[in-house]
Protein backbone atom coordinates (compact mmCIF):
# COMPACT_ATOMS: atom_id res chain seq x y z
CA UNK A 1 0.00 0.00 0.00
CA UNK A 2 2.74 2.42 0.97
CA UNK A 3 4.66 1.40 -2.14
CA UNK A 4 1.63 2.13 -4.32
CA UNK A 5 1.09 5.51 -2.70
CA UNK A 6 4.73 6.40 -3.28
CA UNK A 7 4.51 5.32 -6.90
CA UNK A 8 1.46 7.47 -7.57
CA UNK A 9 2.95 10.49 -5.80
CA UNK A 10 6.29 10.20 -7.58
CA UNK A 11 4.51 10.52 -10.89
CA UNK A 12 2.86 13.80 -10.04
CA UNK A 13 5.50 15.73 -8.10
CA UNK A 14 8.23 17.83 -9.66
CA UNK A 15 10.90 16.80 -7.22
CA UNK A 16 10.54 13.08 -6.38
CA UNK A 17 13.71 13.07 -4.26
CA UNK A 18 12.28 15.30 -1.55
CA UNK A 19 9.14 13.20 -1.30
CA UNK A 20 8.79 11.27 1.92
CA UNK A 21 5.96 8.96 2.92
CA UNK A 22 5.82 7.56 6.43
CA UNK A 23 3.35 5.09 7.86
CA UNK A 24 2.03 5.76 11.34
CA UNK A 25 -0.75 4.71 13.66
CA UNK A 26 -2.86 7.38 15.34
CA UNK A 27 -4.39 7.27 18.84
CA UNK A 28 -7.48 5.42 17.57
CA UNK A 29 -5.39 2.70 16.01
CA UNK A 30 -5.99 3.81 12.44
CA UNK A 31 -3.34 3.78 9.81
CA UNK A 32 -2.04 7.20 8.79
CA UNK A 33 0.16 7.90 5.82
CA UNK A 34 2.08 11.10 6.26
CA UNK A 35 3.22 12.76 3.08
CA UNK A 36 6.02 15.29 3.08
CA UNK A 37 7.14 17.07 -0.05
CA UNK A 38 8.78 20.25 -1.22
CA UNK A 39 6.80 23.47 -0.83
CA UNK A 40 5.63 23.76 -4.45
CA UNK A 41 4.74 20.10 -4.73
CA UNK A 42 2.38 20.22 -1.76
CA UNK A 43 -0.10 22.27 -3.75
CA UNK A 44 0.13 19.83 -6.62
CA UNK A 45 -0.45 16.83 -4.35
CA UNK A 46 -3.54 18.36 -2.76
CA UNK A 47 -4.89 19.81 -6.00
CA UNK A 48 -7.68 22.28 -6.57
CA UNK A 49 -10.30 21.81 -3.84
CA UNK A 50 -8.34 18.76 -2.71
CA UNK A 51 -9.23 16.96 -5.90
CA UNK A 52 -5.90 15.25 -6.41
CA UNK A 53 -5.51 13.96 -2.87
CA UNK A 54 -9.12 12.74 -3.01
CA UNK A 55 -8.43 10.94 -6.27
CA UNK A 56 -5.39 9.27 -4.72
CA UNK A 57 -7.53 8.20 -1.79
CA UNK A 58 -10.16 6.75 -4.14
CA UNK A 59 -7.54 4.86 -6.13
CA UNK A 60 -5.90 3.41 -3.03
CA UNK A 61 -9.25 2.26 -1.71
CA UNK A 62 -10.24 0.71 -5.02
CA UNK A 63 -7.00 -1.12 -5.56
CA UNK A 64 -6.48 -2.30 -2.00
CA UNK A 65 -9.93 -3.91 -2.05
CA UNK A 66 -12.71 -4.19 0.50
CA UNK A 67 -10.74 -6.18 3.09
CA UNK A 68 -8.14 -3.49 3.60
CA UNK A 69 -7.67 -1.71 6.89
CA UNK A 70 -8.89 1.86 6.85
CA UNK A 71 -6.36 4.65 6.53
CA UNK A 72 -6.03 8.39 6.28
CA UNK A 73 -3.74 10.48 4.15
CA UNK A 74 -2.04 13.47 5.67
CA UNK A 75 -0.08 16.04 3.75
CA UNK A 76 2.37 17.72 6.08
CA UNK A 77 4.09 20.98 5.39
Amino acid at each position, binding site marked *: *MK*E*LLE*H*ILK*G*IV*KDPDSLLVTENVDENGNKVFEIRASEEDIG*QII*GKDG*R*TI*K*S*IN*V*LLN*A*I*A*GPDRSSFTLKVIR
Partner: protein
Amino acid sequence: MKLNTIKAPSVEEAVRTAISKYNAYEDELNIKVVEKGSKGFLGFFGGKEAVIEVQLLPSYFERKIGEYLEGILKHFDKDIIYDIAIERKTIFVNIKGIEVSRLIGRHGKTVSAFQHIIGIYANRLSDVKLNVSVDVGNYKEERRQNVESLAHKMAKLAIQKRSKVELEPMFAKERRIVHEVVSKYKNLRSYSVGLEPYRKVVIEFDSRRTNTYKNHGRRWTNGKQSKQNSHRKSPRSNTSKI
Protein backbone atom coordinates in the same frame (compact mmCIF):
# COMPACT_ATOMS: atom_id res chain seq x y z
CA MET B 1 4.80 17.30 -28.67
CA LYS B 2 7.54 18.92 -26.69
CA LEU B 3 10.31 20.84 -28.34
CA ASN B 4 13.52 21.43 -26.47
CA THR B 5 16.93 22.70 -27.42
CA ILE B 6 19.95 21.07 -25.91
CA LYS B 7 23.51 22.32 -26.16
CA ALA B 8 26.62 20.20 -25.76
CA PRO B 9 30.19 20.14 -27.08
CA SER B 10 29.22 17.62 -29.76
CA VAL B 11 26.07 16.32 -31.40
CA GLU B 12 26.55 12.82 -29.98
CA GLU B 13 26.89 14.19 -26.49
CA ALA B 14 23.78 16.34 -26.89
CA VAL B 15 21.80 13.29 -27.97
CA ARG B 16 23.10 11.36 -24.99
CA THR B 17 22.08 14.20 -22.66
CA ALA B 18 18.60 14.23 -24.15
CA ILE B 19 18.21 10.48 -23.71
CA SER B 20 19.25 10.52 -20.08
CA LYS B 21 17.28 13.67 -19.33
CA TYR B 22 13.96 12.26 -20.50
CA ASN B 23 14.80 8.65 -19.78
CA ALA B 24 13.84 7.89 -23.38
CA TYR B 25 15.11 5.63 -26.14
CA GLU B 26 16.66 7.14 -29.22
CA ASP B 27 13.80 6.06 -31.47
CA GLU B 28 11.31 7.92 -29.26
CA LEU B 29 12.96 11.21 -30.00
CA ASN B 30 12.78 13.36 -33.05
CA ILE B 31 16.18 14.98 -33.24
CA LYS B 32 17.00 17.92 -35.42
CA VAL B 33 20.54 19.21 -35.54
CA VAL B 34 20.55 23.00 -35.48
CA GLU B 35 24.26 23.61 -35.04
CA LYS B 36 26.83 20.91 -35.68
CA GLY B 37 29.47 22.47 -33.53
CA SER B 38 33.18 22.42 -34.10
CA LYS B 39 36.17 21.72 -31.95
CA GLY B 40 37.98 24.91 -32.94
CA PHE B 41 41.68 25.45 -32.90
CA LEU B 42 43.39 22.80 -30.74
CA GLY B 43 40.06 22.16 -29.11
CA PHE B 44 40.37 25.38 -27.09
CA PHE B 45 39.83 28.43 -29.21
CA GLY B 46 36.80 29.31 -31.26
CA GLY B 47 35.04 26.06 -30.45
CA LYS B 48 31.34 26.07 -31.23
CA GLU B 49 28.75 24.22 -29.23
CA ALA B 50 26.50 21.72 -30.95
CA VAL B 51 22.81 22.54 -30.68
CA ILE B 52 20.02 20.05 -31.25
CA GLU B 53 16.28 20.28 -31.08
CA VAL B 54 14.56 17.37 -29.46
CA GLN B 55 10.93 16.48 -29.83
CA LEU B 56 9.31 13.69 -27.86
CA LEU B 57 7.31 11.32 -30.03
CA PRO B 58 3.94 9.83 -29.05
CA SER B 59 5.58 6.43 -28.52
CA TYR B 60 7.48 7.96 -25.61
CA PHE B 61 4.28 9.07 -23.89
CA GLU B 62 2.71 5.72 -24.61
CA ARG B 63 5.55 3.86 -22.95
CA LYS B 64 5.86 6.26 -20.00
CA ILE B 65 2.15 6.24 -19.19
CA GLY B 66 2.09 2.47 -19.67
CA GLU B 67 4.88 2.05 -17.14
CA TYR B 68 3.18 4.36 -14.67
CA LEU B 69 -0.13 2.56 -15.01
CA GLU B 70 1.60 -0.78 -14.70
CA GLY B 71 3.11 0.38 -11.41
CA ILE B 72 -0.36 1.17 -10.10
CA LEU B 73 -2.15 -1.87 -11.44
CA LYS B 74 0.40 -4.40 -10.26
CA HIS B 75 -0.96 -3.82 -6.75
CA PHE B 76 -4.40 -4.84 -7.93
CA ASP B 77 -4.92 -8.54 -7.35
CA LYS B 78 -6.95 -9.28 -10.49
CA ASP B 79 -5.62 -9.74 -14.00
CA ILE B 80 -5.95 -6.65 -16.06
CA ILE B 81 -5.03 -5.51 -19.54
CA TYR B 82 -4.89 -1.98 -20.79
CA ASP B 83 -4.15 -0.22 -24.01
CA ILE B 84 -3.08 3.32 -24.74
CA ALA B 85 -3.79 5.20 -27.94
CA ILE B 86 -2.75 8.72 -28.78
CA GLU B 87 -4.64 10.90 -31.19
CA ARG B 88 -3.23 14.37 -31.60
CA LYS B 89 -3.31 15.80 -28.07
CA THR B 90 -5.63 13.30 -26.49
CA ILE B 91 -4.45 10.15 -24.82
CA PHE B 92 -6.98 7.36 -24.58
CA VAL B 93 -6.39 4.77 -21.91
CA ASN B 94 -8.61 1.75 -21.81
CA ILE B 95 -8.47 -0.66 -18.89
CA LYS B 96 -10.11 -4.04 -19.27
CA GLY B 97 -10.39 -7.17 -17.23
CA ILE B 98 -12.83 -9.67 -15.82
CA GLU B 99 -13.50 -8.07 -12.46
CA VAL B 100 -13.04 -4.38 -13.07
CA SER B 101 -16.16 -3.19 -11.27
CA ARG B 102 -13.97 -2.24 -8.33
CA LEU B 103 -11.92 -0.03 -10.63
CA ILE B 104 -15.07 1.77 -11.79
CA GLY B 105 -16.41 2.65 -8.37
CA ARG B 106 -19.74 4.18 -7.47
CA HIS B 107 -20.89 6.54 -10.21
CA GLY B 108 -17.56 6.00 -11.95
CA LYS B 109 -15.66 7.62 -9.10
CA THR B 110 -12.55 5.52 -9.57
CA VAL B 111 -12.58 6.06 -13.33
CA SER B 112 -12.49 9.81 -12.71
CA ALA B 113 -9.69 9.36 -10.17
CA PHE B 114 -7.63 7.39 -12.69
CA GLN B 115 -8.22 10.01 -15.33
CA HIS B 116 -7.25 12.84 -13.00
CA ILE B 117 -4.02 11.24 -11.78
CA ILE B 118 -2.88 10.04 -15.20
CA GLY B 119 -3.77 13.47 -16.59
CA ILE B 120 -1.41 15.10 -14.11
CA TYR B 121 1.32 12.57 -14.88
CA ALA B 122 1.00 13.04 -18.65
CA ASN B 123 1.09 16.81 -18.36
CA ARG B 124 4.14 16.61 -16.15
CA LEU B 125 5.95 14.97 -19.09
CA SER B 126 4.78 17.48 -21.64
CA ASP B 127 4.61 21.24 -21.67
CA VAL B 128 1.77 21.23 -24.18
CA LYS B 129 -1.61 20.61 -22.59
CA LEU B 130 -2.61 17.00 -23.13
CA ASN B 131 -6.03 15.56 -22.56
CA VAL B 132 -6.33 12.19 -20.98
CA SER B 133 -9.40 10.05 -21.25
CA VAL B 134 -9.56 6.89 -19.18
CA ASP B 135 -12.25 4.29 -19.58
CA VAL B 136 -12.58 1.14 -17.52
CA GLY B 137 -14.44 -1.81 -19.00
CA ASN B 138 -16.39 0.36 -21.44
CA TYR B 139 -18.10 2.12 -18.51
CA LYS B 140 -18.03 5.61 -19.98
CA GLU B 141 -19.45 4.59 -23.32
CA GLU B 142 -22.29 2.64 -21.71
CA ARG B 143 -23.05 5.47 -19.32
CA ARG B 144 -23.20 7.94 -22.20
CA GLN B 145 -25.69 5.76 -24.02
CA ASN B 146 -27.79 5.39 -20.89
CA VAL B 147 -27.89 9.13 -20.27
CA GLU B 148 -28.76 9.77 -23.90
CA SER B 149 -31.71 7.39 -23.90
CA LEU B 150 -32.87 8.79 -20.56
CA ALA B 151 -32.71 12.31 -21.98
CA HIS B 152 -34.83 11.28 -24.96
CA LYS B 153 -37.38 9.64 -22.69
CA MET B 154 -37.65 12.69 -20.44
CA ALA B 155 -37.85 15.05 -23.40
CA LYS B 156 -40.80 13.13 -24.77
CA LEU B 157 -42.42 13.18 -21.35
CA ALA B 158 -42.05 16.96 -21.17
CA ILE B 159 -43.73 17.36 -24.56
CA GLN B 160 -46.50 15.02 -23.53
CA LYS B 161 -47.12 16.82 -20.24
CA ARG B 162 -46.56 20.28 -21.83
CA SER B 163 -44.71 21.28 -18.67
CA LYS B 164 -41.31 20.80 -17.13
CA VAL B 165 -39.51 17.66 -16.02
CA GLU B 166 -36.76 17.54 -13.43
CA LEU B 167 -34.06 14.92 -13.76
CA GLU B 168 -31.98 13.25 -11.09
CA PRO B 169 -28.75 14.99 -10.04
CA MET B 170 -25.96 14.31 -12.51
CA PHE B 171 -22.34 15.14 -13.19
CA ALA B 172 -21.49 18.11 -15.40
CA LYS B 173 -20.48 15.89 -18.31
CA GLU B 174 -23.73 13.96 -18.17
CA ARG B 175 -25.79 17.13 -17.92
CA ARG B 176 -24.06 18.35 -21.02
CA ILE B 177 -25.16 15.22 -22.87
CA VAL B 178 -28.76 15.88 -21.78
CA HIS B 179 -28.57 19.52 -22.95
CA GLU B 180 -27.26 18.36 -26.31
CA VAL B 181 -30.09 15.89 -26.72
CA VAL B 182 -32.74 18.43 -25.69
CA SER B 183 -31.36 21.06 -28.07
CA LYS B 184 -32.45 18.83 -30.94
CA TYR B 185 -36.09 19.14 -29.84
CA LYS B 186 -37.75 22.20 -31.28
CA ASN B 187 -40.10 23.29 -28.52
CA LEU B 188 -38.06 22.29 -25.51
CA ARG B 189 -35.40 24.08 -23.57
CA SER B 190 -33.18 22.86 -20.78
CA TYR B 191 -31.19 24.39 -17.97
CA SER B 192 -29.59 23.23 -14.76
CA VAL B 193 -30.61 24.11 -11.23
CA GLY B 194 -29.12 23.52 -7.81
CA LEU B 195 -25.60 23.39 -6.49
CA GLU B 196 -22.97 20.76 -7.14
CA PRO B 197 -23.00 17.87 -6.51
CA TYR B 198 -26.81 17.92 -6.55
CA ARG B 199 -27.13 20.01 -9.67
CA LYS B 200 -29.76 18.67 -12.01
CA VAL B 201 -31.22 19.31 -15.41
CA VAL B 202 -34.70 20.68 -15.95
CA ILE B 203 -36.33 20.10 -19.31
CA GLU B 204 -39.06 22.63 -19.97
CA PHE B 205 -41.77 22.79 -22.57
CA ASP B 206 -41.23 26.12 -24.25
CA SER B 207 -44.44 27.60 -25.63
CA ARG B 208 -44.57 30.90 -27.53
CA ARG B 209 -45.90 32.77 -24.55
CA THR B 210 -42.71 32.30 -22.52
CA ASN B 211 -40.75 33.76 -25.44
CA THR B 212 -42.73 37.01 -25.58
CA TYR B 213 -42.43 37.37 -21.86
CA LYS B 214 -38.64 37.16 -22.14
CA ASN B 215 -38.53 39.76 -24.92
CA HIS B 216 -40.67 42.08 -22.93
CA GLY B 217 -38.26 41.93 -20.01
CA ARG B 218 -35.29 42.66 -22.24
CA ARG B 219 -36.92 45.63 -23.88
CA TRP B 220 -37.56 47.20 -20.53
CA THR B 221 -33.86 47.10 -19.55
CA ASN B 222 -32.90 48.45 -22.97
CA GLY B 223 -35.21 51.40 -22.55
CA LYS B 224 -33.75 52.15 -19.17
CA GLN B 225 -30.23 51.97 -20.53
CA SER B 226 -30.85 54.26 -23.50
CA LYS B 227 -32.38 56.80 -21.16
CA GLN B 228 -29.26 56.73 -18.99
CA ASN B 229 -27.04 57.05 -22.03
CA SER B 230 -28.84 60.09 -23.36
CA HIS B 231 -28.53 61.67 -19.97
CA ARG B 232 -24.79 61.01 -19.92
CA LYS B 233 -24.34 62.28 -23.44
CA SER B 234 -25.96 65.65 -22.89
CA PRO B 235 -23.02 67.51 -21.28
CA ARG B 236 -20.68 66.15 -23.95
CA SER B 237 -22.81 67.53 -26.75
CA ASN B 238 -22.78 70.89 -25.01
CA THR B 239 -19.02 71.07 -25.10
CA SER B 240 -18.95 70.28 -28.79
CA LYS B 241 -21.15 73.29 -29.44
CA ILE B 242 -18.60 75.56 -27.85
